[in-house]
């Protein structure tokens, strides 16, 4: 059957050619990619765009950075993907935040996943937790609120945009703990995102909102809300200069919400260092500072080993805390 054998030869050639072509494409440097472990439009999306737009504008990457979405399990799907499937991709970074560290501590990324399973790259910005009340609330400062809570922890309705065990709940729980109040006695209401919680605050359905500082700027400007405390190590500048920290009011609570990135565990030191340098350089450019402020982020520069240590310490701290407040055994 001469016809079929020639057909077979052609097919074989085509397959071989196709394989070669695929190989060539594989060998060629792929464009840099950032995975946002969420649906489009959320905080992780903005984190990826911060790197993508910043690196592009500062000409620190040759090709535009691809932003892909991998929603699922509040980041768990992406974490499993990077530790398992694309664990050595030198062009791939993944957006992360304090929330990811908390989920790792609470083992929400899977029982086997730990903070040591990826290479922590660096953080480009940070926001801080804030304790917010309406402008007509009876409490003028944090201490007055805490005294009220001490007297009767369930007399005040606290709300925020996350479930029990989430970042937003942790802020409230830490505040309670700093005044020796059992966090489990708080009356906490979880909403779908900070926007809904803020609406509930303005509509007098809740009395205290544990939100994020920069997020609240519009309502702060209009005088509708009063921020009783910023959960930062020190006062921030500009429009936030009048907002005292919790620490200076005698309650030692900090809640930085950093926005950073990690890479796969088997990425070479060389590729890892190249990314560390890229981000470090980016954080020092002036155009980036503008971009960062546009996203409502305060400066934070922690890269490479420095950042790796920071995240690991944070996760260890969260694990400890979770036990203390009764989230895990």
């Amino acid at each position, binding site marked *: 059957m001469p016809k079929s054998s020639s057909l077979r030869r052609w097919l074989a050639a085509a397959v071989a050619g196709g394989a070669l072509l695929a190989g060539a494409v594989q060998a060629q440097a792929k464009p840099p990619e950032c995975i946002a472990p969420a649906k489009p439009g959320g905080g992780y999306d903005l984190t990826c765009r911060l790197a993508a737009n910043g690196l592009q504008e500062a000409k620190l990457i040759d090709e535009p950075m691809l*932003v892909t979405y*991998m929603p699922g399990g*509040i980041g768990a799907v992406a974490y499993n993907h990077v530790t398992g499937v694309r664990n050595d991709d030198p062009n791939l970074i993944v957006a992360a935040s304090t929330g990811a560290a908390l989920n790792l501590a609470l083992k929400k990324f899977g029982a086997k996943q730990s903070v040591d399973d990826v290479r922590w790259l660096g953080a480009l910005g940070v926001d801080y937790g804030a304790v917010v009340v309406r402008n007509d609330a009876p409490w003028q400062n944090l201490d007055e609120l805490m005294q009220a809570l001490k007297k009767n922890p369930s007399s005040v309705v606290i709300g925020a945009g996350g479930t029990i*065990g989430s970042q937003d709940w942790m802020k409230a729980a830490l505040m309670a703990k700093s005044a020796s109040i059992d966090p489990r006695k708080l009356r906490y209401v979880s909403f*779908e995102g900070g*926007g809904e919680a803020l*609406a509930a605050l303005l509509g007098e359905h809740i009395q205290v909102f544990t939100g994020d500082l920069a997020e609240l700027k519009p*309502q702060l400007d209009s005088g509708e809300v009063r921020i009783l405390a910023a959960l930062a190590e020190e006062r921030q500048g500009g429009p936030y200069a009048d907002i005292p920290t919790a620490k200076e009011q005698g309650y030692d609570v900090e809640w930085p919400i950093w926005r950073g990135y990690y890479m796969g565990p088997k990425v070479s030191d060389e590729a890892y260092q190249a990314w560390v340098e890229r981000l470090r350089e980016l954080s020092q450019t002036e155009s980036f500072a503008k971009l960062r402020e546009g996203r409502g982020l305060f400066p934070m520069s922690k890269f490479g080993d420095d950042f790796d240590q920071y995240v690991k310490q944070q996760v260890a701290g969260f694990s400890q805390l979770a036990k203390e407040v009764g989230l895990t055994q």
Partner: protein
Amino acid sequence: MFDFLIQGFGVALTPLNLGLAFLGALLGTLFGALPGIGPINGIAILMPLAYTLGLPAESSLILLAGIYTGSEYGGRMSSILLNVPGDAGAVMTTLDGHPLAKKGLAGPALGLSAVSSFIGATVAILGLTLFAPLLAIVAVKFGPAEFFALMIFAFASMSAMMGKDPLKTLIGAVLGVLISTVGVDSGTGVLRFTFDMPELYDGIDFVVMIIGLFAVSEILLMLEHAFRHDQDGEMAPIGRVMVKMSEVLYCKWAILRSSVIGFVIGVLPGTGASVASAVAYTTEKRISDHDNSFGTGNMRGLAAPEAANNASAAGSFVPMLTLGIPGSGTTAILLGALMLYNINPGPMMFREQPMVVGGLIASLYIGNVMLLLLNLPLAGVFARVLQVPRWLLVPSVAILAFVGVYQLHSDLMAIYLMLVIGVFGYLLRKFGFSLAPVVLGFVLGGLMEENLRRALSISGGDLAILWQSGLSIGLWIAAAAVAFIPLFAGRLKARFLPGRTA
């Protein structure tokens, strides 16, 4: 007082911005028409592009808002033509839209829904212009207890859909509620029905649900027909393509009522087009379905949800522009887009950025007119899509949806899930269930549970919070009325007008 609007028209009527409004309307119609790419994804895809192109804030907002409102227009197309909702707000549109297409009235159905969309959006934009700050104050009064009462009302209205087989409607809705419980529990963070699969932590994605339930099951039905060599000749040939003035007039009250319902629900933060169109449809069925023809291709049953979903899209701008709180998932992304430009939407925006607010509202007016002009003549063109054989059309749309969903999840799990849901939908249809109650149960059930639990955490477990405010009492009464009056009405009719019922 309306200086900002005059200024806004000045901004919106520049050639660049007019062009962008047109582009947004066109792209939005396309994004809405393709199942799997809704307004949220469309905006998320184009937002970085607008930013990279260096468009000024008001221009890119005009583009993105055009996409948003445009996709509410586009969503109806595949609902009517394929019985597959193009986006969340278009589920109810399938109920009467597709039967109309089957009768050969695809063209008029598309035309009528374009007109209803236009009127719905216009009413809502007027409402936005005139009452935005006032409405914002009322909107935040809607707390968890009031939302819970609203959901009860929505479920009670659903009893209107129980036409042929009440038990199956009820079972369908309950199945939907059950599916909505998958994922991280919104109150305590406990995982429910996730079977250790992180892909299920966030619950089942709406798009995955819709494509599986409607499109995949449709393909399975078609396969079955092909296998048994059935005639798939359920489609009547396409008749006339233009909608008649008399048809629009027949629907005028349905459209106006639904526009108001849609706008009000759109203004509430946390509820969007899907709730709005469901409430509008069931309300309209109650009011004007005298011969029980809703669900078999009644023009009012098509006009009502379409007016409502467009009205709710414009309504959701109210809390975003006045309070800085998104009224829907899509406005949440628009909010993010504004922040890219260092504009913080909120109470100060009308004062600090009148150009942006005015430009946006003006462009909503302009975009809306463009969408009508674009969609009326296109109705005839799109109706011709039905001349493509269904065995080719539906799988092609499904493939597009698969690609879209995969692109968004970068994960095969979403595709498998869609297939499983598709088989589930196929079985439901084989057993004679309607799919709309399942979807409504899925959407409303999640919202109802969340808000009930929020209300109870606020009150510390005291149920009385659910009927403490005037708003919630009103909603409870309305719910009781829609659920029980028909029962009594039937009995009264039977007693006093025996001649008519016999």
